[in-house]
């Protein structure tokens, strides 16, 4: 518990900033909803652009709008935050040499990683939860009712994707001791993957061919239409998390902390 509290405390200021930014993004989404819905923006949107988001025909205007904003920048925030958190678990400690202080204490490496993984999951949950809360309570305040169950599932999907991205980052970060390099590398890679997904969709690349594109597992339109997360996506994300965590524990326990 001491290790958990210490890492949570270290990340608390960052959490507040990220939650604030995410909530503002979500709020800007809900506040611009009226323009989209009342202005019938969906009908005016070019077909090529609509195809990027999947088949949103038949959805209510507000549901369609939600799939659009969650498939856009709002969906990127938790994954980027998960990357930053994952890099803080070990890489940042190595880079700033505080790992020496930490490991000179009577702690097991497994304990250290476990407590930090718990903070990562908790903080990503808080961030995703804050975004969900803004949409869930600000839209009705403006007189809109959406498919709230599906909205919840979209956020669950986003949460799972963020944890998976965090787990993969954590695993790879065991071989990266330079925090600033890690941040550049991973934020760049995740952002690139995010935009690549939409390029691939615009180019009508099939779902099967996008299997290695992480953001292909974030499917707001499909969830809004079917009311469920695709089983295949759940399996891939869960397996990715399990593999990422397993590799992280394996690598951290064998890591040599030389001068």
């Amino acid at each position: 518990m001491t290790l958990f509290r210490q890492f949570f405390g270290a990340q608390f200021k960052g959490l507040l900033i990220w939650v604030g930014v995410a909530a503002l993004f979500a709020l800007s989404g809900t506040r611009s909803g009226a323009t989209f819905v009342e202005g019938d923006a969906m009908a005016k949107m070019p077909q090529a652009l609509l195809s990027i988001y999947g088949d949103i025909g038949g959805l209510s205007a507000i549901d369609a709008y939600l799939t659009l904003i969650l498939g856009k920048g709002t969906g990127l925030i938790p994954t980027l935050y998960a990357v930053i958190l994952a890099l803080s678990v070990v890489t940042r400690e190595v880079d700033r040499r505080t790992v020496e202080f930490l490991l000179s204490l009577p702690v097991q490496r497994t304990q250290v990683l476990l407590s930090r993984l718990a903070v990562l999951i908790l903080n990503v949950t808080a961030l995703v939860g804050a975004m969900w809360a803004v949409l869930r309570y600000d839209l009705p305040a403006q007189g809109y009712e959406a498919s709230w169950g599906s909205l919840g599932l979209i956020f669950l999907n986003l949460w799972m994707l963020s944890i998976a991205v965090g787990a993969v980052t954590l695993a790879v970060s065991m071989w990266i001791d330079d925090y600033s390099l890690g941040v550049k590398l991973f934020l760049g890679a995740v952002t690139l993957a995010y935009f690549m997904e939409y390029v691939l969709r615009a180019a009508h690349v099939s779902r099967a061919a996008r299997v290695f594109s992480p953001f292909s597992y974030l499917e707001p339109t499909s969830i809004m239409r079917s009311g469920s997360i695709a089983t295949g996506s759940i399996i891939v994300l869960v397996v990715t998390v399990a593999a990422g965590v397993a590799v992280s524990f394996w690598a951290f326990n064998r890591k040599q902390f030389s001068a």
Partner: protein
Amino acid sequence: MQAIKTTGLTRLYRNGRGIRNVNLEVRQGEVFGFLGPNGAGKTTLIRTLLGFMHPQSGQAEMLGLDAVARSREVRQKVGYLPSDPALYDFLTGQQNIDFALAVRGIKNKNRVKALADRLEVDLKRRLKSLSRGNKQKVAIVTALAHDPELIILDEPTSGLDPLVQEIFGQLIREERARGKTIFMSSHVLSEVETLCDRVGVIRDGEIVTVDQVENLKKQRVKYVTAEFREAAPDLSEVQGVRNVAVEGRKVRFTFHGGIDPLIAELAKRSLVDLTLADPPLEEVFRAFYEGGGGGR
């Protein structure tokens, strides 16, 4: 029971450096100095003992416990001060120490206050706002706060001003008087001479010798510059004099061994100036290695 016992301990880096087949015994209750030039393997040995690095072969015991298999228990009883300590700089000194004590399950903080008062360090300030010397002081308090049985110090006085070095020296002597074992690596020969009972010398990852401090002192080398009123005499025949260079009335040389014969020899001439300087540690080691060192 030995405080530290290593048998054939090996941990090599890819470039071939590290420690090789290290056999070392540090007795309980002694202050053991660990000397060696940069890159000799001092820090690697300490890191291997503390579990930061895993040995490739050999065994290490600390306080009777296997340093690898029971590393957590070992670290409960050990205080460690690295050469350039890095604590959490977004926390205050007190918060860093509280964290370390909480992990160790220690609630009594009387010792923290006593140590902080001795070192005159303000624990209420965030580490990022402290000077390097003050950060070092916080690290000393952190390393000693839980009253460890074995204290491992990696070049502990680097960054400390001379006054604090003196206080630190007193602390080490007091810990020794209380029966604690201290294992310290150092570049400062005079510090080792003053504080330590025995010394181990490491070169290229291997222990060259372990000996009493007194024996090491005999291996000491000085850089000597002497200026005479008349032409510089030929001192190359004087026992212990090496590397003689004459420039007019000035003569420079290295001197190995006890200083008395040299002073007696120089006193026979009329001197204008005489300087005796400590050479770089590498030079001392070179002299030490050439001399073969003492018995193990």
